[in-house]
């Protein structure tokens, strides 16, 4: 069973009389354990595609099956539950809560799933990204690279089936960006499914497979032959 199966997925925005198609019939599957980069220039529809795949948006037409189930019948509340428990998000601008400790940020998703042992789970997730020494720091006291690693820990804390990373290195210097990419590659090596959205060829080459999107359609679906491996920095990542 595929983790994700989309068939003829289309999305259009209607503004009065003007209909703007954003996705025009996209089909592909993602198997568990894959590392897929969705790549394309801005306006290509890659973000809309990611929003639909991650249950933030619904398609206009077409079919989206997640873990073998048709998502069109899910209620908004059920979709919120899926976002909470089955997927994780990493954003370009980190989106951490200000004036809040690193630990509390990572505990946030567990607040909405009403998990009891949130403290332990959050500490484990932070250990996995090498931030056990920053638990009580406030998010304005840590570096950009560390912020993104907190965001990754937050995405992992509910042990999701798939991790969505939307331009995760876009706001980082190359060294921090490398660390983040290396964490993602490590997670994938351990079996985590990762879907990366980016407009950069260089970043996309960290994945194992690239879906090239342009004008709302998939131009190419290719294996990455010359895969970039982020350099190993044992100081930062276990």
């Amino acid at each position, binding site marked *: 069973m595929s983790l994700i199966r989309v068939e003829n997925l289309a999305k259009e925005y209607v503004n009065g009389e003007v209909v703007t198609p954003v996705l025009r019939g996209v089909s592909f599957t993602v198997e568990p354990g894959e590392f897929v980069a969705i790549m394309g220039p801005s306006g290509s529809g890659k973000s809309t595609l990611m*929003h639909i795949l*991650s249950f*933030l*948006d619904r398609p206009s037409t077409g079919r989206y099956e997640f873990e073998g189930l048709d998502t069109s019948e899910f209620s*908004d*509340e059920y979709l*919120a*539950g899926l*976002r*909470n*428990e089955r997927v994780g*998000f990493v*954003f370009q*601008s980190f*989106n951490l*809560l*200000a*004036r*809040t400790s690193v630990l509390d940020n990572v*505990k*946030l*998703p567990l*607040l*909405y*799933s009403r998990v009891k042992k949130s403290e332990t789970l959050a500490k484990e997730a932070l250990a996995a990204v090498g931030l056990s020494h920053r638990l009580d720091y406030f998010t304005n006291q840590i570096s950009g690279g560390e912020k993104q690693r907190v965001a990754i820990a*937050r995405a992992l804390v*509910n042990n999701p089936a798939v991790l969505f990373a939307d331009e995760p290195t876009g706001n980082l210097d190359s060294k921090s960006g490398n660390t983040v990419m290396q964490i993602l590659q490590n997670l994938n090596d351990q079996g985590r499914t990762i879907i990366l959205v980016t407009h950069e060829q260089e970043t996309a080459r960290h994945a194992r497979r690239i879906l090239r999107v342009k004008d709302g359609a998939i131009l190419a679906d290719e294996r990455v032959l010359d895969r970039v491996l982020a350099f190993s920095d044992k100081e930062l990542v276990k």
Partner: protein
Amino acid sequence: MFAVLKQSLRALSANKARTTLTTLGIVIGIATVILVLSAGAGFRSLIDAQVAAFGSNTLFIETRVPATTKQRAASGDNAYNQGALGVVINTLKDRDLQEIKKIPNVVNDYAMVTGQAVASYRDNQKNALFYGSTAERFEIDKHTLKAGRFYTAAEDVGAAQVAVLGSSLAKNLFNQDDPLGKLIRYGTLNFQVIGVYKPQGDITGVANDAVYIPMNTAQHKMLGIDHFSFVIVQVADIKRADETANQIKLLLRSNHDILSPEKDDFIVQTQAEALATFNTIFGGITILLIAIAAISLIVGGVGIMNIMYVVVTERTAEIGLKKAIGATNKDILREFLTEAVLVTVLGGILGIMLGALLGYVVSIIATAAGLEWAFVVPFNAIALAVAVSATIGIGFGVLPARSAARLDPIEALRYE
């Protein structure tokens, strides 16, 4: 729930100045409500003390000038203009007093006259009111003495020159000296001080400055009259007070040769009537003041709504993130409502403290003025204040919270 509370507290403490200013409207409104109810309870305790002192089971008979048609047109039906018109009603006499005593429900009664003269002891002088009354006064009036004794019926019959002093007057005339047994000059006569009252709560403020002397002494030696100004009647069963009042009216009309109630030269008032009048006025004033406080609460609520809308805009990105990681609309609604209710309840608690403090200050001032004023913050006033402030939080917080809950997560995430 605890985690939600913690989040709200963090959000509020992040902007302390704004939170404080936002609560101000609620603080003032709630403080006003508490002050009104607290001072109201204090005032009521004062009235209760007065009623208890006179005995709640008493009737007052007061002389009154019967209004002629002309007077009624000119000045209304006013019992208190007799002095101004130079008319003195001199029909209320000892015969009335004795016959009232024989009415079945009547336990006891006493008569009273009043006047004014200068009291002096050595170098100290004070203009003081006197109450001349028959000795039965002390069986009905429950105010007790600090020192000495009351005058007796025998002293009254003999028109003895003995006096019981109000507490302030005793202090003014004698300072630290013991007044008992001393002679004071009062008007043109010498009186021996035989007793001093304890301080008594009195809205008119004159009771503590007065001289209390036997009826006959007052009538014959001070005033040169043989009638009374007031008669105070104690009844056995207050529930039958109206019936007794009617019997007294009939008796007085027959004694005074009055043919129609319009020509009455007296009025009979029951404590219950006086209390009912008081309660009506007092209730009206309370409602008026609370209505004014309610306006402040509404203004405070609108302020909170305004700030909550600002907060929603400020935290758009945060709301987007929370929705992305699985918060439902209900979760977001609950978070913002919690925050709004927290602000208002906080304001409510501050308001209760401020209102109680002001009520305490009022009680201190009232006590200093010699009134028997109890400081009370009624428990139901506190419960009301908390309930009202929480309701305002929900009422005025629900619209901003709903607009937060309905934000589109994709739009919200993009918001910078």
